[in-house]
């Protein structure tokens, strides 16, 4: 779902796939041939460290790090923005949800290097304890969390879901693909189903979001 049309310096999905394919081939060669160089094999020097620049919560950031670092680990381990949580590291739980150029993604599923020039918003950029976003206030009021570990992801997702509905993006439960979409309990639950809450605060999260959307849950 990530769109990237801003040209220079940005890695497109196609380029990324191509790059991955080269890396995979190189790895496979190493495995097969061991460390002794076979004359006919292409020499690939692995790039172990690389720089990337993007903005996080409106602040420009420049990082030099292991090329294997995910966006999630770049945020947590390099920038110490630990509000974004690692629940599974495999895109299965949604705890690491952040907004990239306004769209929500699982930050564990992309490498930090893919985000050159992107604008990233984490939970720390949504609001602070002193200056809560309406969604954060609604989560507190409706007790839309218990242990709190999935909460930053739920809130980032919920904020984005309301925007997606406003923008008329349909979901699996929308009656029509092209008709305008309205916030409803079913629309919200469907769109939020990539964000697991094992404490089971779903019923309360839906009420919190309904309040922010301005409708009765």
């Amino acid at each position: 779902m990530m769109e990237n049309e801003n040209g220079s310096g940005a890695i497109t999905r196609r380029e990324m796939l191509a790059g991955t394919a080269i890396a995979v081939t190189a790895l496979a060669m190493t495995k097969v041939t061991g460390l002794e160089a076979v004359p006919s094999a292409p020499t690939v020097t692995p790039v172990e460290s690389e720089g990337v620049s993007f903005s996080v919560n409106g602040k420009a950031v420049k990082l030099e790090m292991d090329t294997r670092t995910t966006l999630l680990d770049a945020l947590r381990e390099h920038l110490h923005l630990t509000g974004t949580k690692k629940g599974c590291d495999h895109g299965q739980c949604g705890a690491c949800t952040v907004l990239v150029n306004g769209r929500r993604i699982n930050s564990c599923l992309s490498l930090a290097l893919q985000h050159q020039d992107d604008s990233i918003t984490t939970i720390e950029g949504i609001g602070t304890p002193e200056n809560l976003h309406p969604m954060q206030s609604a989560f507190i009021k409706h007790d839309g969390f218990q242990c709190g570990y999935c909460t930053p992801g739920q809130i980032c997702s919920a904020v984005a879901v309301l925007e997606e509905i406003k923008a008329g993006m349909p979901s699996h439960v929308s009656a029509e693909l092209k008709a305008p979409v309205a916030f409803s309990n079913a629309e919200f639950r469907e769109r939020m189903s990539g964000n697991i809450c094992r404490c089971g605060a779903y019923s309360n999260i839906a009420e919190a979001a309904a309040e922010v959307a301005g409708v009765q849950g």
Partner: protein
Amino acid sequence: MKFEKPAGINPIDQLKVIGKPTDRIEGPLKTTGTAKYAYEYNDQVVSPAYGYILGSAIAKGTISRIDQSAAKRSAGVLAIVTAENAGPLQPGKFYVSRFLAGPQIDHYHQAVAVVVAETFEQARAAASLLKVDYKKSKGSYDLESARDSAQQPAPAEFGPPPQTLTGDFEGAFKTAQVKLDETYTTPDQAHAMMEPHATIAKWDGDRLTCWCSVQQLNWGVRDLAIILGIPKENIRLIASYIGGGFGGKGTVLADLVAASLAARAAGRPVKLALQRPLMFNNTIHRPKTIQRIRIGADQDGRITAIGHESWSGNLQGGRTEPATASTRILYAGANRLTRLKLAVLDLAEGNAMRAPGEAPGMMALEIAMDEMAEKLGMDPVEFRIKNDTQEDPEKPGRKFSTRKLIECLQTGAEKFGWQNRRAKPGSIKEGQWLIGMGVASAVRGAPVTKSAARVRLNSSGIITVETDMTDLGTGTYTIIAQTAAEMMGVGLDKVMVKLGDSSFPESAGSGGQWGAASSTSGVYAACEKLREAVANVLGFEPTKTQFSDGKVIFGDQSVDLAGAAKSAELVAQDEMTYGGLSKEYAQTTFGAHFVEVAVNAYTFEIRVRRMVAVCHAGRILNPKAARSQVIGAMTMGVGAALMEEMVVDKNIGFFVNHDLAGYEVPVHADIPYQEVILLEDIDPTMSPMKAKGIGELGLCGVASAVANAVYNATGIRVRDYPITLDKLLKNNV
């Protein structure tokens, strides 16, 4: 303070702060990502190294050799810990698992090695370069085939006795007019809490500090000391926030041991989290059960005989899943039998998960009750009400401290619209959907146990509470603040709560549904001492001094509370301990669950449409947090009913679906609006708080209410959880 006699009127009964649906005091931190979990103490531990566990690729056997050469050469590697260089390790006191394999391997994904490197990426890469040669041996992985080898276990610290006999069960069952004899199974389940087990370990000489995710810090310190063979006094555990536990983080698991060993080997602080796909086979889980239930009744529906036998498996020396607990106490009947059997299995350790024993036991018992009601031609609510008992059925004469099971059932039936249910399955259809309604009783013990706290009053009038209690999302921060505020006569804005540090006074910890009632009682005791200290400083007679609205009042004198600490901070510490009231009275929580499902008539897809729970669980300290505990439990109950199962590969010997994609838990789309009704229940036999736990009660019975609703919708009785559409299709004849 020792609690020996039922509580009289005390400051908690003012209910100015207690009993109010207060927002969680840590809400602004959790919703902004500011609350810190184990892996996130970047301010305390600068430039730590990273640890990564390699799990065993076989379930049983030995390690012949670990070739570390490539891993050692890998970039950034600082140390590799295996059984060979770890030094002697003992099992802890609560779990039987050994946290580092070698040479023997006890179960799949048991830690084989810990790699420490400068970065997470380097540690992970190096771990993949370890070459382990295994020698496999034959293991036992299937409870069904091990069932006949199961033995009666020794009595355990927690849970019911392995066998209980009252009257003449076999005789009474044989001659009963109406009988049921059925077998049910519940699968291996995972806690699957959102925060993986994680630790940052830091040694200062021989002193070890770990930021970790452990529910019972007192057990954690005890067990880590035993495991590592170091004095308890040298260990400090910190767990300010825990990202869910459900019993799965009771005490020390592999992350704590591995991080501690790794930090010692690397000579640097080490942070380590269990990777999600390792958690399911490496840590603990709720073990599978096979349960046989026999109920005999007379034609009028009065139970004359009730028997419940349960088989489970575990590693050698592991505990039994005590699935018979609820059957001992829930319904009347003069002739009774419960029996537990334990087989040895070579899967990861089975241990406590939310309402251990009671949750899976009720999954079976409450289907059996539904089946029995149908045999008798009775309404399932009526059948349960008819067999209510007001005294302990095993010990006639021993009363329940409070018991309103009937009121739970009646209130729920009315709220839910139970009168619209049709007894004949498949009677209600909406388009292509079959609609069914189900009910189940809920019961869960209400233990309360020793818990201590320290309270401070400073010159600004701020009360600070310190206790090693934990908050796993249970609302502990908030109810402890409410307790201190009520006791000291101040608003919540004047109370600070510090939890989750083993250097604080030892609390009950979070487990067994004892946390809320026990930890607040410890705070009550400490506040009593602080009130006394305040009165003494001000020259007031302690027993006649009132604390209200930030003032200390004695006769016609009224002084600001802060004034008492003007010259020096006042500090008081105490613990609450208990006498024999729990022996004298059966102290238990009760409830009822009502569920409506829609089952697609063609595909058998099951959707939960409505859920109502009624709970009777002592004084509700904070109705908002209590309700959340219950809706969360109802959600977990839907998972247990419809999707949760760790599938065993019986050849290789492991749980196949070991991540959050394969182990399905309920998501937003699965859960409708949930209604919870909390009945008033002030239980003076519990403690001065008059409260009980509720977080586990909410789970007991939910899955069977769903199962019974599915039966009511379809007429197909599934006795093997989870109830998936393939089982309905298979039985649709």
